Every structure is written in structure tokens, then in C-alpha cells.
């Protein structure tokens, strides 16, 4: 369960607080829920995803993720919590000096999984996203769409409890985007909470679901 109570966020500029990018967000997303995260550019979608990924912490209000109160958690608790949250970044955020295989294996290695299981899971995952022949390719040797698929594989390989995605279909063709939606819906059906930020109205229309709509840092529609 994800619970936000009066959550606000402003980035710090130097020593003075910058303008508030998220204001007074209150909502509950149940375990296994699915939400589109919608709104115009600059409305705060990426900031909300960063918040839910614990890349930033709320500057106001209370945020609880997977029943852990973020405000009371230790740094170690937050690290363990991040392992249960998968994130697909708009700019992929792959490690450029690692092969596709090792990029996808990272979350499993951080969690201390045995190497044999890692080899099997990562190979299977990359094969599923159509990159079974490019296990050893570095990100720079892959196209934008292929990098996006590596990023998706990395986000889901650890079977996270929460999956966050920022424009995950941005670099994919129609067929690949549909395959991705099938994967995300299947994960959601198996109990993963899925939140997808997108501008792709056609995609939302093809896969109707509940949505959170942000405008000027405020939630104008939820549930």
C-alpha cells in the first residue's frame, strides 16, 4: 500500500528552498493497484515518481510505502525499501561501462541472490524483451528502443512489489509497446502495484484504468 498525506516537495537550491513542485498530495494506492499518472509537462509527474522511488524525500506531509513510514525509516531501511521498488526512467539510466546482462543483473546482485539464479533470470528476462542475442552489448552499442528494453528488464527482473515507469513506451514501436503493456498488466495481475506516467493518450485509451492527474504540482484527480 502507498499512502500520501499532505505530501509536499521542494528542491533545495543552494541553501534556500526552491519553489514547491508538489503540493498537498493526499491519496492511497492499494497493494496490487494500477494507476496511470497523467498531466501536462512540468506538472510534477517525474517528481512524484522520484518521490515514490525514494530518490527524494517529502519536505512536508507523510509518505508511507509498502507500510513503511518513510519519515521514520533509517538510511538502511530506505535502501532495503528501494530494492522492492522497480523504476523505469525516461532516460533509461543504464551504467554505460556494463554489458546489458550486468546492467539487468545489478538489482539481483545488490540483493545478494546466488549467481546461478541471476544468470538464469537475467538471460530469461533479456530474451523476453527480445535482446537474447545482445547480452554482452554495452548500452552505447544499443538503439534507444533496445536501451529502453534493458531498463525495463532491470526494473522488473527482481519481481518488485511496486513498479514505477516514466514514459516507458517513449522509444518503443507499437508492437513493442503492446508487449510491454502486456508484461506490466501481467505483473499487476500477480500483485505488483504499477504506476505509469505517460503522455501517450492512445495507450491510455487502449488500456483504460484508474488514473492520477497532476496539474501545477497538485492532484486534480485520483482513484
Amino acid at each position: 500500500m502507498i499512502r500520501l498525506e499532505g505530501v509536499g516537495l521542494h528542491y533545495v537550491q543552494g541553501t534556500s528552498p526552491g519553489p514547491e513542485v508538489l503540493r498537498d498530495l493526499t491519496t492511497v494506492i492499494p497493494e496490487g493497484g494500477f494507476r496511470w499518472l497523467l498531466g501536462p509537462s512540468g506538472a510534477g509527474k517525474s517528481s512524484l515518481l522520484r518521490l515514490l522511488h525514494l530518490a527524494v524525500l517529502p519536505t512536508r506531509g507523510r509518505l508511507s510505502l509498502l507500510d513503511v513510514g518513510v519519515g521514520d525509516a533509517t538510511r538502511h531501511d530506505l535502501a532495503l525499501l528501494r530494492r522492492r521498488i522497480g523504476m523505469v526512467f525516461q532516460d533509461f539510466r543504464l551504467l554505460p561501462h556494463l554489458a546489458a546482462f550486468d546492467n539487468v543483473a545489478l538489482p539481483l546482485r545488490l540483493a545478494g541472490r546466488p549467481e546461478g539464479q541471476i544468470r538464469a533470470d537475467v538471460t530469461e528476462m533479456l530474451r523476453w524483451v527480445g535482446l537474447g542475442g545482445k547480452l554482452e552489448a554495452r548500452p552505447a552499442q544499443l538503439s534507444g528502443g533496445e536501451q529502453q528494453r534493458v531498463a525495463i528488464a532491470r526494473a522488473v527482473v527482481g519481481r518488485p512489489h511496486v513498479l514505477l515507469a516514466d514514459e516507458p513506451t517513449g522509444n518503443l514501436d507499437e508492437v513493442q509497446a503492446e508487449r510491454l503493456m502486456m508484461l506490466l498488466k501481467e505483473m499487476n495481475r500477480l500483485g505488483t502495484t504499477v504506476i505509469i506516467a505517460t503522455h501517450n493518450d492512445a495507450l491510455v485509451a487502449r488500456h483504460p484504468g484508474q488514473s492520477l492527474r497532476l496539474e501545477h504540482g497538485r492532484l486534480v484527480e485520483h482513484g
Partner: protein
Amino acid sequence: MAGWSSMARPRDDLGLGRALGERMLPLVVAAMAFLAALALAGSVGAAALSKRWQEGAASVLTVQVPKATAPAVDTPAVPRLERVLAILRGTPGIASARPLEEAELTELLRPWLGSGAGRLALPLPAVIEVHLSGAGPDLAGLGTRLEAAAPGSTPESHGVWVRRLSALARSLEACAWVALGLVAAIAAAVIAAATLAGLAVRRDAIEIVHGLGATDGTIAARFAARATRQTAAGAGLGALAALPVLLFLADLAAPFAPAGQALPPGMDPGLAWLAALPIALWLGLPALPAAAALIGYATTQMTVRRWLRQLP
């Protein structure tokens, strides 16, 4: 294939091996270890010198006895030399008293009187070499009793000079330790600066790994493992480079040192050069890479953990 944690040879997920600037670190540490080896040798040498002066010179007293063959004042039946020897040998704090032979006396006076001193018709006083034990005797009381038996007999202590020389040696030793401490502090500062540079270069990679749930401990361990290897290797190199220099200095210092340490029985005489350096130095030199590794590990851990505080 090694994984992220608890592997013998950790994989380089953060690309730590790719920053050219950090390859300088082992060389800088090698130079520091070279300096540390010299300081260490200085401290060991000064300590040995101070100890020898105190044990050697401080434990020797000379007593001159004028008119040695004349009857003693308090016991006219025995000559003054015999009487003084008897008093000395009966005094607590004195280990032994031995009158110098004619030849030794001549040798002692040679720098002043030339080799013919013995043939001069000078009434030379007898000289007794006294070895002290423990804290030594009460010199004032001893002087009074000697004066009563053989007027003009004065125990002459080397204490003042020994104290001055020991103070000098102790100061040299302290300087050497200060130099060692400074080298360690500078090494820590250099390692911290190199670590911060490395962190800045890899900020993106660290943020990604942090976002995937790496704990501060995991990330710090990555940097610390690398720094430990680099500083240990660098310091090993520096200590090795210092070895010939130290052997050369030991060779120069040999005439001032006590006759070389005895080789353990059965030891190959071809290894005699091992005896050229004090044991403390043979123990201290290998300790340099270990100390450097410790400094490298601790400094890097602290630097990385503090830096990571800027991430939530």
C-alpha cells in the same frame, strides 16, 4: 562470475578502474611510504643511540686517585689505590671497579701527551673505571668517603653529558615520530581527496546503484576495497624502494653502532646483511603496507559514507 557483495574479486560495477587520475594514488602512497620508512629508521636509530648512551656512558664512572701508592689517610696500612678500590667495591649501586692498566692509561692520554706519555716522569694519578648498577651510588656521600681515605680522589660522573646526549637523541626520536604522524595525516588527506574526485566523476553511476537499493555500506566497501589494495601495493613499493637506502645508511652508521648484532647460530653467513638493520626496522618496514592499507580503508570508508549523506 563475481557478484555485488561478498566476492573474493569484486566486479567493477562503478567503473572504478577507469579514472586515470586515481592511478596516481599508488605512486603517491609509495612516495609517502618511502618517507615513512626513513622516518621510521630515524626513530629506531635515535632510540637505539639514546638507549646505548644511557646504558653505556651513564653506567660508567671514573675515579682518579692521586699518589696512588701512598698510604691511605684513614687506614695507613694499605696504599690509597687499594683503599679506594675497597671503598668502591663496598658501595651499593656499584657493579665493579677496575684500575686501568698502564697501557690503557697511556692510550687514554695519547691524544694529549703523545705516545711517549708513559715515559714522562709525570706523577700520573691512578684511574679506576667504575661500572654502576641500577640507579648508581650516592655520589656526594661517596666523594666524602673517598676524600677522607685519599685526598684528591674525585668520582667523575659522565651524567651531565649523557643527559644532554640522551635529550638530543630523544628529541630526534620525537621528531621522527612527528614526521611519521605527518606522513600518515598527509596520506589520509591525499586518499580523501582522491576518493572525493572519484565520487564526483562517478556521481551518475552511484546514484543509479543507490536507486537500485545499494546500501551506504555496499558502496563504501567498493571504494574502500580498491583504496586498500592500492595503498597496500603503493606502500609495499615504497618500503621496498627504501630498503637499499636504509642498508646504505646503516653501512655509513656502522662505525658508530655497537659491533653488529650476533647472527643466530646456524644462520647462513650469506644472510649477514640482515643483521645490518635493527630488528625493530625489519618489523616496522612490513608494517608500513599494513598501516597504509588501514589508513586507506578507514579514510575511504569515512569519506564515501559522508559523501553519500547528500543522497536520501
